[in-house]
């Protein structure tokens, strides 16, 4: 069996396309790793072994027939369980969607499949993507491969942990307040949140529509670039998708290896204040020094409205979530209570039984935010604050090409530590929410390990549609360091 531990997706695709490996062999290697290592990690909610073998065989048949199976030929991917997959149960890690088998495929997974990728199964997450530790999954927690006593971050914790533990060669995620970048940081992998609308949301179960950003996870920057090139692009099924052509992200990543001459990198003081862990700060500052050595000019920038980001985010995301989660009523799909004697009871019991504590909390907060007569005081004000936060970035980008910050103020925290304290949990997103509010691209990559052996992440933020500069900076850093080559210890089942 091929040893796929730590192998990059790009290497696998090149090997399959060159005839070095068969997609089926690669897939079997990952299925074997999942069988041996996922028991102790809990990354997968569903392993679709048969489907994966079928898809791998189809790739091999295409290659054998002399045709190119695509840029991701034979690359086994994990799919966050928020992406609808035709014929395959999709739960969003919620009891309310247990048994829901979508009759349609998300645009993202459709495109990945068409590019030759092989979906292995569905990955765990915080219920409806609400959380920063993957402890809010209705079905199981996911452990951090670097230390199983710690959380992998969230909400895409299953995706980050699976990539870190080589239980897939890459994964999909969604980032609403940091749900790709924060777990990528805590698990020592690369995660990219592109510009809002750059990747279609069709078939991605909505949490907060104006903030939901699908994006890729990978072992290397180039892996995420390769995945994003396939995932991105306009989609007639998503009216908010943007029409501009997709950038050359792999090329930009490789350009970074030639250095960062002429690139100005902004460092915002607001992201290096109280609450930032000392080890994280030291690692990120060291990474910025490395970028300077790569030729970048480091400039101070100011993002004065950063302090309003968390409050703004929670007003908008709860309002939108309360609306998006209204459709889970037990009438057409998913869980339906067995106890209802009236329509009102059907709603209250179905929702009472089906939703976990965090979705319920956010539905209530959101309903409060939107209630008649208070729209301006809460939602309206949040929209204005959002504008100011976006304007901060626009002003900053007048003086720099990209901004570099820590991804998370702290490394992975202990499992159970913040479960009882939602506010503490919400602060895990303090450095990631602002780019979501502004809809601009941001990437997290590994830039160190704590003395305790936990990964630290560096975040690179670009202007709208500035994915390429993010990839160039990240590619430069990765080519000059070896953090991305560090692997967590093998988990035992």
């Amino acid at each position, binding site marked *: 069996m091929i040893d796929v531990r730590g192998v990059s997706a790009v290497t696998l695709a090149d090997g399959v396309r060159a005839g070095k490996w068969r997609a089926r062999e690669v897939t079997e290697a990952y299925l074997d790793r999942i069988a041996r290592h996922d028991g102790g990690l809990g990354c997968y909610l569903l392993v679709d072994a048969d489907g994966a073998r079928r898809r791998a065989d189809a790739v091999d048949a295409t290659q054998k027939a002399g045709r190119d199976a695509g840029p991701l030929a034979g690359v086994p991917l994990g799919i966050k369980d928020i992406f609808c997959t035709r014929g395959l149960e999709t739960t969003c890690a919620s009891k309310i969607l247990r048994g829901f088998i979508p*009759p349609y495929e998300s645009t993202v997974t459709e495109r990945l499949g068409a590019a030759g990728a092989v979906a292995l199964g569905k990955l765990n997450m915080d219920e409806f993507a609400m959380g920063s530790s993957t402890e809010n999954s209705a079905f199981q927690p996911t452990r951090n491969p670097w230390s199983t006593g710690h959380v992998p971050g969230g909400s895409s914790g299953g995706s980050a942990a699976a990539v870190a533990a080589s239980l897939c060669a890459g994964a999909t995620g969604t980032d609403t307040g940091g749900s790709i970048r924060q777990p990528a940081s805590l698990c020592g992998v690369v995660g990219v949140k592109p510009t809002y609308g750059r990747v279609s949301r069709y078939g991605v179960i909505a949490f907060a529509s104006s903030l939901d950003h699908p994006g890729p996870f990978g072992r290397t920057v180039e892996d995420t670039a390769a995945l994003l090139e396939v995932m991105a692009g306009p989609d007639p*099924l*998503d009216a908010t998708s943007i029409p501009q052509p997709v950038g050359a992200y792999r090329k930009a990543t490789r350009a970074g290896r030639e250095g960062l001459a002429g690139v100005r990198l902004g460092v915002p003081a607001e992201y290096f204040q109280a609450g930032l862990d000392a080890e994280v700060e030291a690692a990120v500052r060291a990474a910025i020094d490395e970028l300077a050595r790569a030729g970048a000019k480091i400039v101070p920038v100011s993002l004065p409205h950063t302090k309003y980001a968390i409050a703004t985010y929670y007003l908008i995301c709860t309002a939108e979530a309360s*609306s998006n989660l209204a*459709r889970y*009523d037990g*009438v057409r799909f998913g869980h339906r209570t067995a106890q209802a004697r009236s*329509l009102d009871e059907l709603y209250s019991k179905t929702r009472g039984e089906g939703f976990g504590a965090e979705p319920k909390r956010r539905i209530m907060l959101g309903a409060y935010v939107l209630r008649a007569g208070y729209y301006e005081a809460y939602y309206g004000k949040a929209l204005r604050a959002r504008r100011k936060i976006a304007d901060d970035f626009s002003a900053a980008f007048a003086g720099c090409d990209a901004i570099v910050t820590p991804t998370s103020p702290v490394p992975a925290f202990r499992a159970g530590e913040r479960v009882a304290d939602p506010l503490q949990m919400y602060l895990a997103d303090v450095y990631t929410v602002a780019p979501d509010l502004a809809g601009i691209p941001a990437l997290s990559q590994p830039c160190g390990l704590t003395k305790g052996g936990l990964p630290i992440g560096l975040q690179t933020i670009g202007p709208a549609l500035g994915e390429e500069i993010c990839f160039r900076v990240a590619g430069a850093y990765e080519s000059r360091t070896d953090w991305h080559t560090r692997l967590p210890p093998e988990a035992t089942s």
Partner: protein
Amino acid sequence: MSANASGEREVPSHKPIAGGAGPSQGPGQKYEVVIGLEVHVQLATRSKIFSWSSAAFGGEPNTNTDPVCLGLPGTLPVLNRAAVESAIRLGLAAGCTIRPRCRFARKHFFYADLPKGFQISQFDEPICDGGAIQFRLHGEAHAVRLTRIHLEEDTGKNIHAPAGVSFVDYNRAGVPLCEIVSEPDLRSAEEAAEYVRAVRALVRYLGIGDGNMEEGSLRCDANVSLRLHGAAAYGTKAEIKNMNSFKNVREAIEHEIKRQAAILDRGERVAQETRLWDPARGVTQSMRSKESAHDYRYFPEPDLPPLVVTEAELAAFRAALPELPTERFARYTGPVGLSPQDAGVLVADREIAVYFDAVVAAGAPAKRAANWVINEVLGRVDDPRRLGDADLPVPPAALAELVKLVEDGTLSGKLGKDVFGKMWGERRGAAEIVAVEGLAQVSDGGALEEICRRVVDASPDVVARVQGNPKLIGFFVGAVMKETGGKGNPKAINEILRRLLGQPTP
């Protein structure tokens, strides 16, 4: 939803454009009736407003559906531009201001026929503002101001079976709707019904919907309140729902006016509530009170970018508008020279007007053509819109041919009607029927004179009495007609008889 919802605003009361206030009857003598209407019009687009399944009426339950209109997780709405075009054309026809940029909003409530737990509608930024609906009632022109017209999606339909089982049909979910909200300008149930008729005519003229109240493609809710004549503030209103015919609209509102008047007469207060019209029992019944009214928690729909309408699009739509009822009415009563009554009948449906215009274009004199269309053609169809059918038994050109045969004296009026009956029943042309059946009017002076002489000679007693009683000439006319088998030209017969009997020609 409606801007006329608040009962407290002071607004000058509506008056007909011409003439004074409308007639007051019953409770209207003490109280002024104030009515505002919300009319929902289904737009006859091919696909739904935000997804691809068919928007057609009917079909086996849940066959015209797709993941988007069912509100399945992860699906997203994409706006159908055909629905936007229909709304804009309606707005232009009603003289509304079309917003260059507007937004959709989510309106939240829980009901089994509402798939997403919210309806995509418009709230603070509707596509059309202002405008008016014009109609004529008892010879007076009315212009009822509009607050707004907005676009939204329809809900599905609950079907309640016996034994407490309910089913939901989502075929209707996502069918595009225009909601037309009037100012509280209407002053009687009759005006309200006429207003709805006018909306339907507009919708049909524009071809954007079929406006069928029974099938629910045109629905109407009424906000009704009373106040003492001369009072500045509005009274408390009740919203009346479930009126699915013009008759229902009139009767429900009439009933509601009486109900509120009785409450006010007792010195009590009208409760602000939503009431359902029960056509079987002829009463309105309370559905929900103001206290239990929904908080719709409106907010801008994040899945849809703002809707932008360019000046160029507007200009193109405006240029492509058909001739509308009010414009046609003006043309018919002006240059065409018809009476307001006839013009009113002809413009009521676009198909009638188009048919009439085609008859005139084919050479028939306008007034005659109007009579034939109103008295003969409309009497033979169950739905006036059938006049637009390509396979109508008597197409406009055929009617024009008949009208000309009557005009030039070939056929008498009475025979003309018989020929029309044959044309309709047998789908044959007028000239053919006249020729084959020998129905051409006998106008030949010599032949007619011979018959007239014979008839006069046969009844000397009557001839003797004609001098004292000129009306008796009709006796001879009838006899001659009988002799000619109804084909004699009555005008010629009259002239000959008067000459023979020494009577002056009138």
